[in-house]
């Protein structure tokens, strides 16, 4: 996997938000989530397995996602994650909080 410059570090706490957002469009397995994030961010966000899977476990524990075994597009058993109702609510809340934070950071960068 060719890696250009060192990918920027994620803001702490944003991985959960990104995972939830990726799942908004439908259920996905872990690899799919990682790929999705990479593609959408144009290779800027390369989520390592060592942070992705603990994040998924955290979301499972919090009840924001649900996991079931299914069959992948290449006919292998894969574990699919789906947003729950609580997950949607959490996504909305975190999204809003994130926007507020980014806005605040922008404001500071521009005017401070």
């Amino acid at each position, binding site marked *: *996997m060719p890696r250009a410059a060192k990918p920027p570090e994620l803001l702490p706490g944003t991985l959960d938000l990104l995972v939830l957002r990726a799942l908004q469009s439908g259920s996905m*397995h872990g*690899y799919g989530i990682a790929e999705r994030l990479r593609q959408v961010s144009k290779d800027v966000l390369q989520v390592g*397995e060592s942070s992705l899977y*603990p994040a998924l476990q*955290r979301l499972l524990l919090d*009840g924001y996602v649900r996991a079931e075994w299914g069959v*992948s597009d*290449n006919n292998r058993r894969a*574990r699919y994650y789906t947003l729950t109702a609580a997950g949607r609510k959490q996504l909305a809340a975190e999204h809003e909080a994130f926007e507020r934070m980014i806005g605040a950071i922008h404001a500071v960068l521009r005017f401070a």
Partner: protein
Amino acid sequence: MTSLMRWLRRLVYWMHSRSRTDDLREELEFHQARVAEELGRRGLSAADAHVAARRAMGNETYMREEARSVWVPPPLEAVVQDWRYAWRGLRRSPGLTVVAVASLALGIGANAAIFSLIHSVLLARLPIPAATELIAAQRDLGARGVDDRFSLDEYRALASGPLHLTMVSSASAVLETDGVSASGWLDIVDGSYFNVVGVRAARGRVLSPRDDSTAAPVAVITDRFWRGYLNTDSAALGRVLTIDGHAFTIVGITTPGFAGLHFPALDDVMIPFRSATALGIVRATNTQAPILTIVGRRGAHESMDDARNTLRVIWNHCCAAGQLVAASRGQSAERSTLAIEDASRGIPEIKIDLRGRYGRILLALMAGVAILLLAACANVASLLLARGSARVGELAVRLALGASRRRLVMHLAMESVQLSMLGAIAGVALARWATGVLARANIGDLGGVIAPTLGSSVLAFAIVVSLVSGLIFGVLPAMRVLRSDLVTPLSQSGRRAARAQRGLLDRGLIALQMALALLLVSGAMLLVETLRNLKDADLGFDPTQRILVTSETRHTAYEHQGMTARLANDVLARVRAVPGVKDAALASLIPISGGRSSYDNVTVRGAATSSEVETNFIGVTPGFFAALGIRFRAGHDVPAPRASFGVPRSRDVVVNEAFVKRFFPVGNPIGRLFEDSDEGDSLATQDRIVGVVADTKYTSLRAPAPATYYVPIADGDWPYLILVARPAGRADAVARTVARAVADAVPGLRVGGADLLSVSIDDALIRERISAALATLFGAVALALVAVGLYGVMLYQVTARTPELGIRMALGANARSIVGLVIRQSLSIVGVGVLAGFPLALLAGRAVSSQLYGVAPYSPSALAIAAGALVVVAIVATLVPVRRALRIDPLVALRAE
């Protein structure tokens, strides 16, 4: 709510832990396969893609652990898991576990047993509520020390203040129930006593201020007395107890454990002061006689200083006002200062000064067992190291597979904790057994205070000790893990190098054990030597087959000097009539064994030493020297008792050789004169020396015989008179008859049982015997530990050197040289240990020097014997490893290489 849900999910996860772990593994495999596919699409071969994907994924185990840790808090999980692993590991090597636990059990058990002794003697508080608040008053007499006796006037003056005070006057008394009499300790108390002390009745009632006004003859007995003398009679309340001939009714039994405020607490009966004075049990001729101990309770928020100041203000005020005029042996109240002391550990019984007698030796023994424990820890550490090295490979593999170092150290720590816990359990059992044995054994005055069960403080001590020792012996193996790298242990040569290094540390630990064992063994030798010297010490008299009967004249009609001659003549006539008695005599004191020691100031007119010298004297009847086997050097015996009153103007006395050397170094002492006088007495007695006898020890076996003179018994009044009888045959055959004869001769005299002089000499050596026996035991245990440790290490060394020994054998080394090789290595460890032990042993000798007698703290023979014992133990412990070395088959050894 959400947190509750989280915990529920955690619980479900925990229950399905295994399948969830499998899920995760499969999920990660899937992920990796997809990464490999992706790489394959970019042109890598299938094999290369697989490898690259693995590399990209990194440490999978670590990742799984991380993901798991979201569900199960890692510390908890790890602890439970490590606990199980460690337990399995210990069960897998039962030999090591048994030896390690046994070593620790010996160390911890010995510590707990000695600590329980120290607790009973030095630390235990009185079993009363809020014991720390208890205070006792003392009269500070300056250079003369302290005195804890006060007069009734003084008590009343102090009690008028705001502090809660009470008083107790203690005395021995003859207690009689249903015709069976025994000697016991009596506390004469006022009505506020139980209120101030805070002790309640387990049955019946305690004494109250009402008993002060009625002066009824009622008594409260202690649980100890109830069990010991009344056989826990359920109908004890209301029974009549005769105290010094006066009938008292038992109205209550105190709660178990309480036996008065003294240390040692041995009190039996409490009676009201009012009734005791009314019946004449307390012969308070006036309210100024110092007969009471004053105790009290300071407020919960009041400091010692507060209480001291409060009482001193009252004391000084009363002294200034002239209210207190009591004099204590020439010291007036005005001139003495009031001292207030903490009494939470009991008021020290001056006559039975257990703390003074045993304090130092107990601390020395404590140091001894602490060293023993250290040796046991070194032993376990070296055993664990020996096993750890067998596991270096295993640990390296675990590290390589992704275990964190913290986890491995944790795992080893668990092993140590489990070993020390097992050791603590076995040790406490051992200590319980040991204190039980001690409490039942004949250990004289110490026997009364030893708690036969281990209290909570002893258990807490054992737990702390076991944890600390677990830490000590667990640290080395753990450090090894922290330092170790992955590669070296996995390669053959690396393993060998590690072994050599390990050997150094191991041998160091054994050498440390050797040094500690040398210290303990040589210390024990010193104490044993001391005991033997004291046993063999020339007493100046012959203690074998001598009967002693002690009678107390205090508070009887024979207390006064004028009665002594009649008493002596009556008693001796009776006893001499007993068939089988050859000699009999009475004395105010029997050296070493009993009686009240007396001293007066001796002046020799016109001698070079003109000053007064305090000198011991003993009142005796003629025949005393013959009865005790004291040899006459010159002259003849004291005259027979004749009734005399007051201080005689002149008399004939016998002196010992030390006395002659002290006062009449030149010329014939017979016929010479000296004067003796009590302090404060204006009249001196003119003494004429009529005989000189050999020196005898006086009150101490250790001190050299002091200058002593023997006066006719009728010339003084003595609180105790002791009969010594020498039978023709065996002493125990006639002992009881002799005691009965004394009691029959003088009705009303308080007569104790018959004792054997040899027994009381033995009793005088109890401290020395206990310390010598325990120190010997510790030394033996230390040697056993050394043997086990050395055995383990040498066996390991032989195994590690198998290839080398095989090569040597293949090259033609004979059995002798192989044996020499192994023995040399073993002895080199002994050498290092002994060299390191010498300075330690010298320090230990200095530390116990005050306990020694007739042996120098730096005793070359003790050191030599200890070092010799170590060498012998080392050789015995090396025998099996040597045999193992001889059995090595060169072919097998070389093939293994």
